[in-house]
């Protein structure tokens, strides 16, 4: 699946396109098919996203969306060496999600 990501213009937060808006959780991301560039352009023009681009996503065994490449998985989660600052601060195994 193709998922669309970028950063929030003002805060810099990593965000994912949900079909209606933007979420900081990659699990909310939807398959944009071949519409990624089009959505990116419109959303960038409206300043709801910055530096948007499409990446390859996949679903894990439980059906959760995650990026196919490790770099984007770390981007989606947060630094693996500071899980306290990641999106899953309470999950000691969060780092495994990345590998």
């Amino acid at each position, binding site marked *: 699946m193709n998922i669309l990501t970028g950063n929030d*213009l003002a805060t810099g*937060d990593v965000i994912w396109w949900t079909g209606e808006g933007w979420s900081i959780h990659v699990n909310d991301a939807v398959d944009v098919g071949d519409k990624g560039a089009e959505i990116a352009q419109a959303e960038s023009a409206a300043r709801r996203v910055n530096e948007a681009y499409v990446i390859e996503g996949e679903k894990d065994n439980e059906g959760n969306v995650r990026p196919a490449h*490790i770099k984007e998985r770390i*981007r989606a989660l947060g*630094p*693996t060496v500071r899980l306290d600052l990641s999106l899953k601060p309470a999950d000691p195994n969060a780092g495994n999600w990345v590998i």
Partner: protein
Amino acid sequence: MYQYDTYDQAMVDARVAEFRDQTQRRLDGQLSEAQFRPLRLMNGLYLQLHAYMLRVAVPYGTLSSKQMHMLAHIARQYDRDYGHFTTRQNIQYNWIKLADAPDILADLASVEMHAIQTSGNCIRNISSDQFAGVSADEIADPRPLAELLRQWSSFHPEFTYLPRKFKIAVIASQEDRAAMRLHDIGIELVKKDGEIGARVFVGGGMGRTPMVAPEIRAFVPFAEVVSYLEACLRVYNRHGRRDNKYKARIKILVHEMGREEYTRQVEEEFAHMKTLGLDPPLAELERIAAHFAPPPYETGLSDEIDLSDRDFAAWVSTQVKPHKVPGYAIVNISLKPIGGIPGDASSAQMDLMADLAEKYSFDELRVTHAQNIVLAHVKKADLYALWKALEEADLGTANLDLISDIIACPGLDYCSLANARSIPVAQKIAERFSDLGRQKELGELKLKISGCINACGHHHAGNIGILGVDRKGVENYQLLLGGSGAEDVSLGQITGPGFDENGIVDAVEKATNVYLANRTEGERFVDTFRRIGMAPFKEALYA
């Protein structure tokens, strides 16, 4: 320390106001990202893996307590309570909001700091020796020249759009603590017939094509250094390649053109430059130098240190270095606790180090290229109290220049250019060798890790270097041996096929075992490698 004059302050303040306006226009939509990107980069603001990242310049690595307190304040107020000290003696914040950036720059300007020229194809922060002004072996203090070069290179109109970034280091000792010859220009202050001048090396660097800078002139009189560097940069600006980003650094020009031809053109340009009267008058040099006058040291102090506390004695033996003034010592504060993140410091740690500098070291701190902090003028009688305070804040690790004193770039945990994570590898290696006795048994061993070929973690210059690569989406690590960034500069050689994350830790251990089995009296790891060569290491690694 240098203090801004009204020109310095006015320039920095004007820049803050300009950036505030630019940021507002970006947030309002009057500027597109394509228009804004170069403007924010000129102010050190990158968009990185998780958020905006701000790189703040610490000129030649020197900070006052007040400035360090401000860095702590910024981490606390605008970031997530920590910062990362880098191999170029700067600090990076990883979680900056665009809307806050102008306020941060204003806060920095209030303590004579900025983020100007910490990105882009311009002359970056000038780096120097963290022991400047206090080591017994220096022939002069390198900081006045570094400061002069800071002023010369700040907003230099001709050198704002060079073919590529440009890094300069200045040292004044034979011992090189600044990886001088791995810079675009490296300057070593030397004495000839009683006169001080610059020995100039051009065309060093790391990245994908590492090179050690060759010497292009043995002596430039101090008063003509600016003209000479101007000539070096002019020749580069004229002929450096702009068609290919990977061939754009000056090292490629010097290499392709040849050292002789490059030097010839520099000499020709230099002869012309000297007729223009660009070099600053002696009075200006003296004005700058006066800022670096030694602090009011006490005299008649004892050189005795009570080493009856064994842990304290262990710390003294690695972290404390001789000072040129009797009764004083240079203290190295490790930002490498075992299992910690190399170079990271919390706001509380920054505040504490600033307070300790105020109390014990004439208000001054230095950042080292090895991502540690130095208090340069501590009375020997104060060492015990200082150590106690550092210990309580997890800043008392005694591992300077040992295997766990690892340089590591942010890698894939923070950097969008990365291929692999650096920090977890550093942590695992430090944990594997956590026993301090074992580390000391290994002796001086500089281990350096980069998360990609850009080599921000100096892996080419590591006695043991590690380079993270991407092998079909999986992190993989190449091992290099035999590099050095010191006066015995050399580039490491790749051992062979790479290793996975646990494999690289084992590989490092095997390499140290080969060293232990082969070393002769007094040999460091790198000496043994140079003597016995790669073969025995390869055998142990790939058998």
